[in-house]
Each structure stands twice: as structure tokens, then as C-alpha cells.
């Protein structure tokens, strides 16, 4: 493909659409914010800080989605992990590193439970993950916490959740950016990543190519559970408390951002850059509205409208080339028949 062709392809790509929307939002809010504070280091840090948990959930749930499955349990798993961490640290007195490992194992166990129910019992992933999350994981949160929030005062965990590098950039931001970068590289540059795309695109083709989509499903659900638990750990560390409602409500917006960022609902398509840009647009937009003192009720409506517009934009961007291809093919067929 020549340079012009590459450029044309880029301008039609989802990444370009997202980048253009982001640029427009940034310019607008920079212009209207008091003293152009929208692009101040502190505010950029605030935007990234508001993305921390969503990044972890989005990375986690995007993997099963790439495989053509759906995971709604990580939010609840996060709450259970946060409550368990608070309980083990405060009431049992186990060292922080063992507690973190135990909580991550809890997340992996939930993920594997999802995968078993989906693969062995052939239940739809949407139903399984919702049931495991909203009943089993939520129930465990209640049992572990005894129905009350548990304060966390372990210095390492508190540092992890609240320390700001240079007084500005929270440690959790660095962690979440590192996570999405690593997963982005895994997806784009490794054989394992390519096998996820292939299995998500067509399981039959993947099997014929010698891959094992079922095994992948176990790995990706376990990974999603682990990242959900990790998000719950960071959430609890940020609030210094194991809370009952915790991260319950986080997974669904993360799924929305993932789809917004271009990861195809049916699997096999999308990347972490799009996912990141999607999250950046949504959180950057909400941050701008907060700066403009728009009430939070309108913020919800505005975010929804933005999402719909972006999806419409994407629909038109992708529809045109396909129509052109169809009409070209039709012309070719007509010419062939005439000869």
C-alpha cells in the first residue's frame, strides 16, 4: 500500500475518529475553562485519576469481548476483593502482600467459575457473569464485611491508594497506565494476542489453525476476574475502606467505553489504544462539564449524547467504504456479464 493509501486508511479508521473527537473536546474545554486550566498538569492528572478504575475494568472485560464473550462480574468481584482486603488487613492482621495475593486469587477463582459455567454447562456468558457477580460475589462481600464498611490503615495499602508522585500524579494512575500499555503490547505484538483475535473472529477457523478457544476462554475470564479484583483493591485503598457497594457499578460503564473505543461486540476486532481513547474522551468530557459547573444530571445526558454521536459517526465512516466496495463489485460483475 502506498503512502496515500495508508493515509486514506488512517483517516477512515476508528482511531482517527476518536482522536478527532478528543481533540475537539480538548480545544473547546481549554478555551472555556477559567485561566485555560483544563490543560493544567493538575487537571490532566485529575482526568487520568478518574480513569484508573475504568481502565482496569475495561482492560479486563475487553479480553472476553474480543473472544466474543461477555463479562459483567468484575465490578462485583472488585467489591468482594476490596471487602476481603479490608477484613484481612484490619481484623485478621495478615501482611499486605499476602492479602493482595489472596484477593487476586479470589478474582481468578471467580473468573474460572465463570469460565467453567460457560464452557462446561454451555450457559450464556451474559447470564453466568451477572449471576456470579451480583449474587455470589456480592453475597461474599456482605458475609466478609458483616454489612459494615471496614476502615483500612495499613501504611503500604494507604500509600498505594493515595500517594501522589510529586504531589500531583497518583501512583494508581501510573499503575493503570502501565497495565493498559502491557495489555496493549500483548494484544498487538504477541502470538497469544493474535490467537485471541483469531478465536474471536471465528472459533472454527481458530480450531482449524490448531488453537484452543476454550482454553483461551479460561485464561481470559480468569484474567478479567483478576483485574476486577485488582481494581477493587485500588478502590478500597483509595477510599481507605472496604465498602459494600464498592465497584459494583463500574463494570458496565467500562464495557460501554470498550465498545465506544472500537472493540467489536461480536469479538475479533479492536485494540487497547481505542479503548484508552474512548475512556479519555468520556472522562475528559465529564471533567470539562464539571469545570463548567454543569450539574451532574446533565452530565449523564451529555455523555450519552456524546456516545451516540460518536457511534453514529463511526457507523457512517465504516458504512461508506463498504457501500463503495459493494457497488464496485456490482460494476465488475455487470461488466463481466456484458463481455
Amino acid at each position, binding site marked *: 500500500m502506498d503512502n496515500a493509501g495508508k493515509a486514506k486508511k488512517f483517516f477512515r479508521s476508528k482511531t482517527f475518529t476518536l482522536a478527532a473527537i478528543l481533540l475537539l473536546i480538548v480545544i473547546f474545554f481549554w478555551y472555556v475553562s477559567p485561566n485555560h486550566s483544563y490543560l493544567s498538569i493538575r487537571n490532566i492528572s485529575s482526568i487520568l485519576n478518574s480513569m484508573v478504575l475504568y481502565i482496569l475494568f475495561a482492560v479486563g472485560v475487553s479480553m472476553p469481548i474480543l473472544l466474543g464473550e461477555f463479562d459483567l462480574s468484575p465490578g462485583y468481584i472488585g467489591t468482594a476483593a476490596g471487602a476481603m482486603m479490608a477484613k484481612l488487613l484490619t481484623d485478621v492482621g495478615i501482611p499486605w502482600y499476602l492479602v493482595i495475593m489472596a484477593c487476586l486469587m479470589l478474582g481468578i477463582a471467580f473468573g474460572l467459575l465463570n469460565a467453567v459455567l460457560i464452557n462446561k454447562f454451555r450457559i450464556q456468558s451474559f447470564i453466568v457473569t451477572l449471576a456470579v457477580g451480583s449474587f455470589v460475589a456480592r453475597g461474599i462481600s456482605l458475609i466478609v464485611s458483616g454489612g459494615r464498611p471496614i476502615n483500612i490503615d495499613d501504611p503500604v495499602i494507604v500509600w498505594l491508594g493515595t500517594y501522589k508522585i510529586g504531589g500531583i500524579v497518583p501512583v494508581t494512575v501510573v499503575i493503570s497506565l502501565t497495565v493498559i500499555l502491557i495489555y496493549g503490547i500483548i494484544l498487538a505484538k504477541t502470538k497469544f494476542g493474535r490467537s485471541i483475535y483469531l478465536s474471536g473472529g471465528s472459533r472454527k477457523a481458530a480450531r482449524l489453525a490448531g488453537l484452543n478457544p476454550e482454553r483461551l476462554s479460561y485464561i481470559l475470564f480468569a484474567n478479567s476476574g483478576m483485574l476486577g479484583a485488582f481494581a477493587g483493591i485500588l478502590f478500597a485503598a483509595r477510599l481507605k475502606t472496604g465498602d*459494600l457497594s464498592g465497584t459494583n457499578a463500574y463494570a458496565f460503564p467500562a464495557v460501554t467505553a470498550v465498545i465506544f473505543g472500537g472493540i467489536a461486540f461480536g469479538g475479533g476486532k479492536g485494540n487497547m489504544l481505542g479503548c484508552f481513547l474512548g475512556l479519555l474522551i468520556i472522562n475528559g468530557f465529564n471533567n470539562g462539564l*464539571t469545570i463548567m*459547573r454543569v450539574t451532574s444530571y446533565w452530565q449523564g445526558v*451529555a455523555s450519552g449524547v456524546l456516545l451516540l*454521536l460518536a457511534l453514529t459517526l463511526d457507523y457512517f465512516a465504516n458504512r461508506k467504504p463498504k457501500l463503495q466496495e459493494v457497488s464496485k463489485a456490482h460494476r465488475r460483475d455487470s461488466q463481466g456479464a456484458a463481455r
Partner: protein
Amino acid sequence: MKKILALLLVSLMIFSLTACGVKTEGAGKTSAPTSNAASADPGSVNNPSANANAIGFFTDGVDPNSRDTYNIVFAYMRPMALFLNIRDALTLLEPVFNVKITDYCANSDIDAMIQNIEIYADQGVDGFIIVIDASANLRIKEVLDGTGLPYIDILNSVRDEEGSAIVHCIGMEGVSVGKEMTKWLFDNSKDYWGEIDTSKLGLLNFTFSPNEDFQDRYDGNLAMFQELVPGNTNIFEADGVTGGLNEETGYNLASAILSTHPEVEYWIIPACLELYAQGAMRAAETLGMQDRVLISSVNSEVLTALWDTGYEGCWVSCVASAPFQYAAPALSGIVSLLNGTETVESLWSSIRKPTDQLTFYEIGTEIVTKDTYVDYFDYVRRESGLS
């Protein structure tokens, strides 16, 4: 072409949102109230909060129009009727205090609330009136302290391990409210049922155990019931923690308990939360038990709205919480802190309990019925500083 059109639409939407967000200059330029400022004696200037009227309104001698408008954020966790009414009351009081209220609802996301407190502080707001959620109250306090801005808490007290209040909070004292509510139900049950065999009376006692204030109300209900009907064991706990802070949870818990205890003929239900009372009311009606159930609740937003439309069911009373009872003292307090006429230590020091580090400002509690609520709310509104 379509891409450009869609981008244009995005820009249009953002520009239209700007119009929503534009500050209304001059909104706070009407005259300040004179009701209680005029009655304050000269010696009170050093501690103006000591001269607050019955609902907590006070002025500190500084003409609100002689200074810039203060930007105050009202932040709360979820869109409940009480919070929204307090927001409306605060907005109505904007011209009285020369403040601009920014409304922020975290939609149950504590993490977002913390982020936004920092964002608002960075953007130069002057202070916060905030409903500090019980689930992470110490962290929220820490973040608020980190902003260096004054703040007043509403409803949920923040206390240290010894139970000492460490944040200025305007709210109700849970145990006494619970006792008052249960006593009212018991005393007035004769008007509804006549003389009854109290061994057949039951208490359905709501709580939401993660919240200390709700749990205090529960404890108050329980203590008063045991005092009024000693030896009665028809006591049933309904903890909303299994569901949430919503009407559905109230319905589910109440219908399960009411329908499975035929040995109890009459029920009194003092609800720590209005939404639970609403759910219990629906459960009693669904089970056809409304003639054998009496419900009261803390807060009055839902029930007064029902009364306004002619409701006359088994939810017979509530502890009134006129939004101005929260709004007036909160604004009086924060403005005096911003004016410098009060310090964090001096504010409401005259009514502070010796065991508390900062003041838990107890609002007056009044149990109202459909016959008395209009007069009571009129009185509160008159006393809030609105002319």
C-alpha cells in the same frame, strides 16, 4: 461529509452545554435579611453562631453585598428527595447570603465524589456543603481537609473511634429521634385502634446497619419499645443492607415479616429511612393489613408529597425535616467561616457537647401529621431568612 457533519454536531452540543453552565452574574445581589441580624446584640459579633434562631439561621454582621459572591458546592451521594429539596432550599437562599450554589450529585460513586472535590477545589470554589457518605467518611474528610477550604457536613455525622464528632455536621441525633418516633406511634395508636392487647403488638424496626446514624435510630426505636411494652418479644429487625437504600428493599423486608407472623395483630413500624416506610406502606396495603399497621418515618419529603395529593393511609406521621432546617444553618455557618467572623473552633461552640471536638448541630425534630405539616413548614420557611 457525514463525518464532518457529525463532528459539527458534537461541537454544537458542547456549545449548547456551555449555555447551560454559564454562571448567572448578579444572582446574589438582592438585599440581605434583617430578621435575626437585627436582634443580635453587639457582644455576639465575636461568636455570631450563638445567636442563631430556632432553625439555625444567623448573620454575622457582614453585609453580604459588600463582598464578592461566594461559590459553594453542594455535594451529595445519590439523588434522594431530601437531598434535592435541600439543594433547592440552598438555591433559594443564594440571594440572602450572596452565594452561588453549584449542585453536584455523585450518583453513588464515592471515588468520583473524591475526584470532583479536588477538581472543584482546583477550580477555585470557596467551600463545600456536603453530605459525607458513611461508607468512606474518614477518607472524604481527609480529602476535604486537604483542599484547605471550609466545609459543613449534612446528615451523617463523622466521628472518631471514641465517638467524638470531628466534623461540623447538621443532622438529627439518631437515638432520641428513634425514641421519639416509637413513643409517638405507641401513644397515638389508641386514636387508630382503641385499647389493644399489647402482647399482640409487634415492632418492625428498620435499619441500614452500615450507617451509624440509621443504626442509632434503630437502637432508639428498640429501647423505647422495650420501655413501653416490657417483656414483649414481637420485635423484628429489617436490615436494608441486603438490598439498598430504596423503596423496593423496604417493601421486600416488610412484606416478608408482616406476612409470616400471624401471632402479631398490630404493628408499629418506625422507619429510619423514608423510602423504607414507603415500601412498608405498600407491603401493608398489598397484604390488606393497612388497618393494623401504623408507620412513621424519619424525614418527610415523600410523605408530605403524598399528603399533598390527599393520601390518608397507614403511614400516619413523620419526623419533619424541612430542607431549610439544613440549608439555613449550613449557609450561615459556612459564610461566617468564609467571612472570618467564626473559626472552625468557635462555630457553634456554645452548643457543642463536651465530648465532641466539633459541633453536631442537632436540628429541631417535630413529628408532623397530615393536619400539622403545612403550618410547620411555613414556620420553618419564615425563620430561614427568606423574607
